[in-house]
Structures are given as structure tokens and as C-alpha cells.
């Protein structure tokens, strides 16, 4: 960034151009009309160079001022794993920063398209990240408001002819200035029913996604295979989404880290032995059907809390310490159906 940034901005470009140069130019024009000593002066003297940022631009300073570092750090500490997601967010953050810098030297570009699609298995954090996205994009200065409108098919598609368009427009209006999150987006398109009104909603969505991208960011989320089918049958939708982000399954180590984070959030903790047992639990649970990543972990923890409560309740004769109330013991986890013990439970 040396020669390119020292260039003079285009006259029409918005930016930190002082209003000064316009007046001297007019002066120079009248000077040529009435020949005299003033006209012989070189035009450069009458119209001084506009004070453009010359020399090096400080990307580091812009980075510091935007507090994007905090956002990214927060993301790292609060979301376990999800490397492709985080790296994409980093890319977007970098792009928006550079964009800001470019604008400051008068290089105009349209707003980048930030519509996204989140695909992945159940419980990989699609909804959680989407909810975060509104805040992240706001801090990056891309959306004007920190608000996320979460909708599903019901909110967009009407029940009779002529009902869908106003309904979809209403939702889009509500989402303006923020993020529109469409969960289970593949339900919008029902190939088995050719008269389904979902297609109409998709067309209106596409139109707004294309024409008002500075007003609205659309995030579609859904399970990988069904979203793939959805995009195959709606190529227009697929091509208008710049960021297709795939959420990978969590590794056992990540799942354990998630469990610890969740427990900390609920003000519990594992006893030393319970930590190992839970690791074994995750290993076994992963092999079983209907494994839903973080969601399964959360359900397992909820059941462990239940068992802890009834264990404490059964032993209510003796005194309880604060420590007892917040510790989840190995026994609470070992009682799980996954270990082949205890009463049969709902697998989820």
C-alpha cells in the first residue's frame, strides 16, 4: 500500500476532501476569461492539491479503533471449534476493514454481498453462530442495527393465493437494517407440490437480497443434505449467497470443552473423576444413532443434573456443603443408558 493510496481521489468521490479546491478552480476559470497578470499564473497555484492522505495508511490503527479484535477474541473463547466458521468471519472482518480504508482514500466500491448459508449436522452451532452474526456484523459496521429476525417457513409463506407476498414483504421490512435468519430454509421449497406458495416467497427474497444488500443480510440455515437439494432446485438462491459455510462435526475433545463451558454457564462443575467418565460417555454416545453434537451434550448434562438432584435428595440425612450442590459426580453420568445402566431413556 504505497503508490495506490497516494493517488488523487476522483472529484465526485465522497471522502475527506476539503471543500477548498472547488472555489479556486472557479477563480481560475474567470481568470482565463479576463486575461491579465492573474491568468498567467500556473493553474496549480490557484488550485492547490487537495489534502489527501499521503504516505502510508495505518491499517493497524483502523483495526484498533474498530474493536474488531475484541469481537474475534470473544468468538474464540465462547465458541469451541468451528474453525471454518471463524476463519470466514476473520476474512469478512478483514474485508470490511480494508473496505473502510479504501473509502477513506476515495476508492468507492459497492457494499460486498454478505448473505450466508450455514449447513451442517444437527447441533453443530448453526443457530448459535447466526444469533452472534448480527452482533458481529454490527460491530464491523456492516449492518446498522443489532437486531436479528429469526423466521421459519410459517412466517414467510401464506395460506392462500395472494397471501404470501405481503407476508414475506412484512418480514423483510421488519428485518431491514439487521440480519434475517431463516432456519430450516429448505422447507421453503416443496418440490412435491408444484402449487406450493414457497416459490413465491423465494422469489421475493431473491429480489431483496439482490437489490437491497446494504439494508439486509440474509442467513439461511439447515441440514447439509437437504440444503444441497434446496440449492440444486434454486440455483438463483445459491449464486446470490456469497458465503456457503459448512459446520463440521465436533471432535470428542471439542465436545468435552463445550460441556465444560455449558456447565460453567449453569454454575456447575465436574468432579475430577466425572471429567474422565464424561469423556468416555461422549465416545460411546457418538457411535449411537441420533447423535446431535452439542445438543446431545446439553441433553446429557441436563439429565446428569437431574440425577445429581435425586442423588442429593436421596442422601438428605447428612449435611450438604455448597461444594456438593455444584459438583456433578461420576455416578451421575455413569447411570446413563449409554453405559448400559439405569432406566431406558429417550436418546437425543
Amino acid at each position, binding site marked *: 500500500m504505497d503508490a495506490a493510496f497516494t493517488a488523487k481521489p476522483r472529484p465526485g468521490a465522497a471522502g475527506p476532501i476539503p471543500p477548498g479546491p472547488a472555489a479556486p478552480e472557479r477563480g481560475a476559470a474567470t481568470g482565463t476569461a479576463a486575461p491579465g497578470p492573474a491568468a498567467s499564473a500556473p493553474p496549480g497555484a490557484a488550485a492547490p492539491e487537495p489534502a489527501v492522505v499521503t504516505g502510508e495508511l495505518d491499517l493497524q490503527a483502523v483495526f484498533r479503533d474498530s474493536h474488531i479484535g475484541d469481537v474475534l477474541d470473544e468468538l474464540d473463547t465462547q465458541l469451541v471449534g468451528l474453525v471454518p466458521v471463524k476463519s470466514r468471519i476473520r476474512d469478512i472482518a478483514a474485508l470490511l476493514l480494508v473496505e473502510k480504508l479504501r473509502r477513506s482514500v476515495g476508492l468507492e466500491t459497492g457494499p460486498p454481498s454478505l448473505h450466508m448459508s450455514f449447513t451442517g449436522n444437527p447441533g453443530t452451532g448453526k443457530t448459535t453462530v447466526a444469533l452472534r452474526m448480527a452482533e458481529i456484523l454490527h460491530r464491523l459496521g456492516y449492518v*446498522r*442495527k443489532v437486531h436479528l429476525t429469526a423466521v421459519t417457513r410459517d412466517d414467510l409463506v401464506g395460506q392462500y393465493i395472494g397471501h404470501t407476498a405481503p407476508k414475506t414483504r412484512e418480514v*423483510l*421490512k*421488519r428485518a*431491514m*437494517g*439487521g440480519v434475517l435468519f431463516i432456519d430450516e430454509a429448505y422447507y421453503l421449497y416443496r418440490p412435491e407440490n408444484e402449487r406450493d406458495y414457497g416459490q413465491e416467497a423465494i422469489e421475493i427474497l431473491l429480489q431483496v437480497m439482490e437489490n437491497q444488500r446494504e*439494508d*439486509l443480510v440474509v442467513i439461511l440455515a439447515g441440514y447439509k443434505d437437504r440444503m444441497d437439494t434446496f440449492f440444486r432446485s434454486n440455483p438463483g438462491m445459491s449464486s446470490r449467497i456469497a458465503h456457503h459455510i459448512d459446520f463440521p462435526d465436533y471432535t470428542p475433545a471439542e465436545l468435552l470443552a463445550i460441556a465444560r463451558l455449558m456447565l460453567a454457564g449453569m454454575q456447575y462443575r465436574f468432579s475430577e473423576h466425572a471429567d474422565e467418565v464424561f469423556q468416555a460417555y461422549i465416545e460411546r454416545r457418538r457411535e449411537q444413532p441420533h447423535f446431535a453434537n452439542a445438543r446431545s451434550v446439553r441433553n446429557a448434562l441436563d439429565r446428569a443434573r437431574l440425577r445429581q438432584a435425586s442423588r442429593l435428595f436421596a442422601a438428605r440425612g447428612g449435611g450438604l456443603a455448597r461444594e456438593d450442590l455444584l459438583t456433578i459426580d461420576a455416578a451421575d453420568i455413569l447411570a446413563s443408558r449409554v453405559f448400559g445402566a439405569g432406566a431406558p431413556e429417550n436418546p437425543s
Partner: protein
Amino acid sequence: MRLTQGTFSFLPDLTDEQISSQIEYCLEKGWAVSIEYTDDPHPRNTYWEMFGLPMFDIKDAAAILGEIRSCRRTFPRHYIKVNALDSSLGRESLRLSFIVNRPENEPGFGLVRQEGPGRTVRYTTRAYAADRPENERY
């Protein structure tokens, strides 16, 4: 004669950008914004036709500006005003109202005098345009 009703009416017409920042101010205050239009701008005609319902749950001015544009497309030669309604007192009270669209040619109002009993004279105003039927006035 230029119609002067509501806020900013003695200023030059607001640009879309200025309208947008006024609406942004209203939304910041938590007011609901509504759009109304009429072709009978008599000062006593308080209730203009509503262009859709007041937009209660809108968070951003872009959506309302879009509605204003669509109202302008539908009624290019009507008066269109934007109202902001404040519900904090338990009722929707008008906080701000300004005109965002006006016909190109505004013939203005005539003064009508009516002879009353004795030497009394009653005065009223009547828009010249109001002589023509609705939708053909401007």
C-alpha cells in the same frame, strides 16, 4: 401556493436522505411511523388516508423509506405525509408529522365569504383543486 402543514414545511422539500434520518430519529425514540396521503389538503382535514397500517415493529428507516417510495409510485400527485406516533402515554399520540410528497402544481386556497344575518360575514377556505372529483385534483 405552497402548502405549509406539519414540521419542516417552511423548509425546502427534504431529500430522501434527510427523510431517512428524521425517521431514524423517530425509531430511536421508539415511535411508530405511519404514512398517509390525501388530495384534499384542507387544514381541517386532519385524518388523511392511511397507506397501510402504522409500522409498529420496524427497526430501520430503510423499510419505511421503501414504503414511502411505493406510496409515491402509487400516488405521484397526492400529498403524502409521514407521522410518528408515541405510545408511551398509553395512547398513540402524534409526535412528529411532515410532508414528504406534494403535487407539482399547487393552486392553493380561496377565501369564501358567506353573508350571515345582519351584516355578519362568515369566512371559510376552499382548495381550488377540491372542485374537481377525487383523484383528479392535482
